[in-house]
């Protein structure tokens, strides 16, 4: 098997750490280099993973890579992705796909023009518990899906995440997309209208940290997404991705991060729930490597990323108008 060479652009989003670690576990994959405009962070990571450091990502892109993983802040996804695609790389870009529809369309067009694949990092599609629930749905165990209630709670992130210019938005941008993607995947239907109530309600950081989205799917199902950074510092677990799925023949309650050990550590005054199963990152990175090898359409494609972004955008419009907003779809 031919070795494939993958680079990582930026550790601004901390998921880069886990993605790069997973890369190292795949046979026949070489980590070709790490680019990061933050020299301190970049050199540290390059030495940690035993690879070459580049200050300017353009330099990394001249190294004849097969693919890159992009974990810059959200506002840079578009430029960096387009540059990478133009250089002949397949791309895996962190979610949200982009910060606006126009950027998303540009990225999809660059992929098409260069004959390369662009994939969006939706690790939940590769979470073993999500896969189990999806399988039950596909086997018809609960009949036709009529409604889904999704909760993606978490703690409020810091740094660029809470700077609208760099992140494109708060919880509504950061968390709506995960569940919007899973809902599309589970129902096989597109979002048609979206309503949202959101605001800077919990943490006083001048960004939407709390949001409730309700939407109608083209097939008639209705769904909700709670995209709030609802948890505080000492909440026992970081990620929460839950779905209550109501079908014509039954229901499913999915708690994607329920496989935990409850740990009480009195020396450090910590009580926490630690997941012991794969979270989804491993599967995501394996998928990307396989897409590079085969050139096939990825599970969690760029178009999936763009479709989820459309929902977040409609949610922001609705938050302002207090009305149900139609989803504006990107050109496929």
């Amino acid at each position, binding site marked *: 098997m031919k070795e494939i060479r993958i680079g990582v652009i930026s550790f601004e989003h901390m998921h880069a750490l886990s993605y790069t670690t997973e890369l190292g576990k795949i046979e026949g994959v070489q980590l070709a280099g790490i680019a990061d405009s933050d020299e301190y962070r970049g050199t540290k990571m390059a030495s940690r993973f035993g690879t070459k450091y580049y200050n300017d990502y353009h330099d990394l892109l001249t190294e004849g890579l097969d693919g890159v993983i992009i974990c810059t802040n959200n506002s840079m996804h578009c430029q960096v992705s387009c540059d990478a695609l133009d250089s002949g790389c397949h791309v895996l870009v962190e979610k949200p796909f982009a910060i606006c529809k126009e950027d998303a369309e540009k990225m999809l067009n660059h992929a098409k023009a260069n004959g390369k694949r662009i994939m969006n990092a939706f690790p939940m599609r590769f979470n073993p518990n999500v896969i189990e629930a999806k399988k039950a749905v596909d086997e018809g165990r609960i009949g036709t899906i*009529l*409604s889904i*209630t999704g*909760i993606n709670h978490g703690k409020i992130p810091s740094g660029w995440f809470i700077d609208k210019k760099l992140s494109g938005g708060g919880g509504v941008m950061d968390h709506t997309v995960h569940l919007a993607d899973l809902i599309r995947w589970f129902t096989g239907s597109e979002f048609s*209208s979206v*309503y949202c*109530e*959101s*605001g800077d*309600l*919990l*943490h*006083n950081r001048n960004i939407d940290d*709390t*949001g*409730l989205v*309700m939407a*109608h799917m083209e097939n*008639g199902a*209705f769904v*909700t997404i*709670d995209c*709030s950074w*609802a*948890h*505080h510092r000492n*909440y026992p677990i970081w990620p929460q991705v839950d779905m209550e799925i*109501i079908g*014509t*023949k*039954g*229901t499913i309650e999915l708690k994607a991060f329920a496989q935990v050990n409850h740990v009480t550590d009195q020396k450090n005054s910590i009580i926490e729930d630690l997941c012991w199963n794969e979270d989804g990152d491993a599967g995501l990175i394996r998928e990307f490597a396989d897409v590079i090898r085969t050139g096939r359409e990825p599970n969690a494609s760029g178009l999936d990323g763009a479709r989820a972004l459309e929902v977040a955008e409609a949610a922001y419009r609705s938050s302002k108008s*207090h*009305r*149900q907003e139609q989803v504006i779809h990107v050109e496929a």
Partner: protein
Amino acid sequence: MQRVAIIGAGTMGRTHCNAYLNIPDAQIVAVCDLDRSKAEGLAVRHGAAVFTSYEEMMSAAEFDILDICLPTYLHCKYALDAMEHGLHVFCEKPIALTEEDALKMIEKAEECNVRFTVGHVLRFFPSYSNAAELCREGRVGVPRLIRTTRNQAFPGWSWQNWYADYEKSGGPFVDLVIHDIDWIIHNFGEVERVYASSFNGKAERQEHGIAILRLKNGTICHVEGSWAYPKGSVFRMTYEIAGTDGDIEYDSVKDAPVWIQSSEDGQYRSDFLNPMSGPVEPYMLELKSFINAVEEGREPLISGQEALSALRVSLAALESSRTGCAVTV
């Protein structure tokens, strides 16, 4: 001592009768149900007279309070008549199916100078009242995000299957979610705007409704009520209150102290029990609170107006789920 007559000896009639056994200041003197055996079943422990018609009971029995445990669409008619006869009225929730009916009941109680309350019992559930109390103490800072669920199988046990007729029961928003709506309004603030969705009869013997509420103080709420769970599934209620400094969560199944599994004739059964007996039994508490108000000649804890406020939000949810427009309350 207050003399009480119960009309409607179904599920709630039975629940109330049991509760009165622990209220020394009240005595059940009459039980009325179209089905004599149901009325008798309840009356016997109280030594109460049995009736199969309201009119008959009104002419033959003497009492101070009518406790209405009838299907919702009958609340208004019997409440108005009882008030006109000078009786105090305890009415099961929801107060009525329409604003007009609710207003008539409120006005009639004033006009006839009788006490009137509605069974928003959730306020007396120890977990719910404790959570509200913790919030008042500031344990979670300012409550900002509230989620509630109230989920069960399609109600198939009722008299003439009246729950299944949404014209008679109002469906989950009016019948089920109204519990949480009242609890939210009372403890967390008035509702400004409602957006909601539900199956609205599209699915056969399955109904499911979710409303997003924006309160006047800015807090947002996700309230869910379901009759879409598979037949035989356990009733479950949950809440989560996220505030500026912390969060409170409760789940009647996950947090149930007693889980019973059994097998009878090859039929598996699973029950999650949350015993609330003695001084914290919520139905006893709500009835006792009303009895005390009547005895002391003061306004009951839960006024007709409050019951109407909750109904308005439920009806707004229903309207929104039909039109797709957010409704300002």
